[in-house]
C-alpha cells in the first residue's frame, strides 16, 4: 500500500498548490475533433485547469470506468453505455443530458473502383468493407442500418455486406483510418467522421433506414474535479459549444 501511495504521488495527478488542476474527460472516439476544440476553449477560459481526454469506443470507456478509472466527465455515443453507468451508480441517471446527435454514412476511398456509387455496390463480392466491432456503438448502429436496408435492397443485402467485412475495428476512428489509408474500400462511420475526412466519398443512407445516435454527457459521482466538470458540461451545452459540435458535422441533439 505504501509503495502504491508513493507511486501515485509521483504521477501527474498529484497536485501542488498553484499548479494547474486536471479535468479528465472520457469521450467517444467520434467526438475526438470537436471535443479537442471545446477543450481548447475551456482552457482559454480557465487557465488554471488542464483538460485531458481519453478517446475510445464508449463501450471500452464504460468498462474502464467500471473497473475504477478516475474520470470527471463521460460523453458517449450511445445511451446504452450511459444507462449501464447509471445502474452501477457511477453517474446520476437523472443528471444525464443529451448534447448532440449523429447518423451513419458509408465512406468510400476515392480510388476505390469496387464501390462505384451506390450502397448496393457494398454487397458485390470482393469489396473490402470495415465496420466497428459489435458492442461498439458505431458497430451496433451499422448492423441495425444493414437490417433496416434489407427491406429495400433485398433480404440478403445485410448478410452479403457482412460477408465482405474484412475487419471489425475497436472504434469508429479506426474504421475511418482503414478507409483513409485505402486498405479498405468502404467503411461504416458517423456523419461527423466523414465530415472530418473530406477526401473520402460519402454514400448517403436513406433517412427511413438510418439511425439517430444520441450522445449523452454526465458528471461522474466520484469526480475528482466536480466544479470544473460542471463548467465543462455547461460549455458543451452552451451556444458556443453547440456551434463547435454542429460545425464538426454533428446533428443537433434530438429531442
Amino acid at each position, binding site marked *: 500500500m505504501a*509503495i502504491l501511495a508513493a507511486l501515485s504521488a509521483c504521477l501527474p495527478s498529484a497536485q501542488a498548490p498553484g499548479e494547474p488542476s486536471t479535468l479528465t474527460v472520457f469521450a467517444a472516439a467520434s467526438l475526438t475533433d470537436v471535443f479537442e476544440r471545446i477543450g481548447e476553449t475551456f482552457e482559454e477560459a480557465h487557465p488554471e485547469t488542464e483538460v485531458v481526454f481519453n478517446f475510445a*469506443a464508449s*463501450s*471500452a470507456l464504460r*468498462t474502464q470506468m467500471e473497473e475504477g478509472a478516475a474520470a470527471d466527465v463521460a460523453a458517449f455515443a450511445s445511451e446504452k453505455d450511459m444507462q449501464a453507468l447509471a445502474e452501477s451508480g457511477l453517474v446520476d441517471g437523472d443528471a444525464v443530458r443529451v448534447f448532440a446527435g449523429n447518423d451513419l454514412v458509408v465512406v468510400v476511398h476515392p*480510388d476505390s473502383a469496387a464501390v462505384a456509387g451506390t450502397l448496393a455496390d457494398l454487397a458485390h463480392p470482393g469489396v*473490402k468493407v*470495415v465496420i466497428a*466491432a*459489435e*458492442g*461498439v456503438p458505431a458497430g451496433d448502429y451499422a448492423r441495425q442500418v444493414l437490417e433496416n436496408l434489407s427491406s429495400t435492397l433485398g433480404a440478403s443485402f445485410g448478410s452479403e455486406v457482412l460477408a465482405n*467485412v*474484412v*475487419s*471489425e*475495428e*475497436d472504434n469508429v476512428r479506426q474504421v475511418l483510418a*482503414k478507409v483513409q*489509408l*485505402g*486498405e*479498405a474500400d468502404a467503411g461504416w462511420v458517423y456523419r461527423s467522421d466523414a465530415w472530418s475526412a473530406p477526401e473520402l466519398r460519402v454514400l448517403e443512407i436513406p433517412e427511413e433506414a438510418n439511425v439517430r445516435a444520441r450522445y449523452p454527457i454526465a458528471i461522474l459521482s466520484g469526480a475528482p474535479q466536480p466544479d470544473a466538470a460542471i463548467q465543462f458540461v455547461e460549455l458543451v451545452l452552451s451556444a458556443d459549444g453547440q456551434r463547435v459540435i454542429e460545425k464538426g458535422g454533428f446533428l443537433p441533439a434530438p429531442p
Partner: protein
Amino acid sequence: MRREGSFLLRRSSARINPDASPDRALATARGRPVPLFVVLAGLMVLLLGVPVLMLLWRGLTSDPFHFLRDPTVQSALRLSAWTSTVATAVALVLGMPLAYLLARNRFRGRTLLEVLVDLPIVLPPSVAGIALLAAFGRRSLLGAALAPLGVSLPFTTAAVVLAQVFVAAPLFIRAARIGFNTVESQLEEAAYTEGASQWQLFRHVMFPLTGRALFAGLVLCWARALGEFGATILFAGNLPGRTQTMPLAIFIGFQQDLGVALALASILLVISGLVLAVLRKIESEARLY
C-alpha cells in the same frame, strides 16, 4: 578494485569466524542477503506478482471453461496456435541461416545488419504495424505490384503471420546467433583438420552443439508471436476466424464482454507461464553440459 574488495570480504569474514576456511566463509557471507535489498526486491515481486495473481483469480472465478465453448474464443485459440507455429517455422527456416552468417562471417555492413535485426525487439508494435502497412499495404509500392496477381495482404491470415514474424523472429535470430558464437573454435579447427566442408561443419558440429540454444530461441519466438497484438490489429485488422488472434479477442472482449477477456487473458497467462517454465528447464539442462 576487485581484488581489494574480495580481500576485504575475506578479512572481515575471517574475523567473524576465524576457524572457517576462506571458501566457506565466502559462501556464508554470500548466503546472507543485504536486508535493504530483501525489502526492495520484495516490493518488486509484489509489483510483478499481484497483477498476475489477481488476473488469474478473476479469470478462474469467471468460469473460463464456460467461455472455452464460445465459438469466437475457440477460433481465436486455434488461429493463435497455428499462426504462431507457422511464424516460428518461418523464423527457423529464414532466421537460422541469417543468424549463422551473422555469427561466423565478417562482412561490410554486418553491424548495421545486426542493429536492423534487433530493431523490432525494441520497436513499439504499433510502429511495426504502420511499417508493415507502408511496405505491404494496398497503396504501397509492393502492394500495388502484387495487386494485378490478385494478392492483397492486409486483413488476411498471412498478414497475421507476417506481423508475428516481424516482431518475434528477431528474438530467435538473436538467440541462435549467440548460440553459434559460443561454439569453441577448437572444435571448428578439429573439423577442418578432418577435411570437413563448410556445410559438413554446420551439419555435424555447429547444429548439434547449438541445438538447445536454437530450441530455446524457437520457444521464445513462439511465445512472443502468440502474444503479438499491436502490429496485428493495425496491419491484419480484426475478424473472428481470419485475423482475430487471442490478444485481439481479449482487447475486443474488453468492450463487449469482460468475462471473455478475463477468461482468455488467464488462459494466455497460463500458456505463457508454461512456455517460460519449459524454457528455464532447457536452459538449466544446457548448463549441465
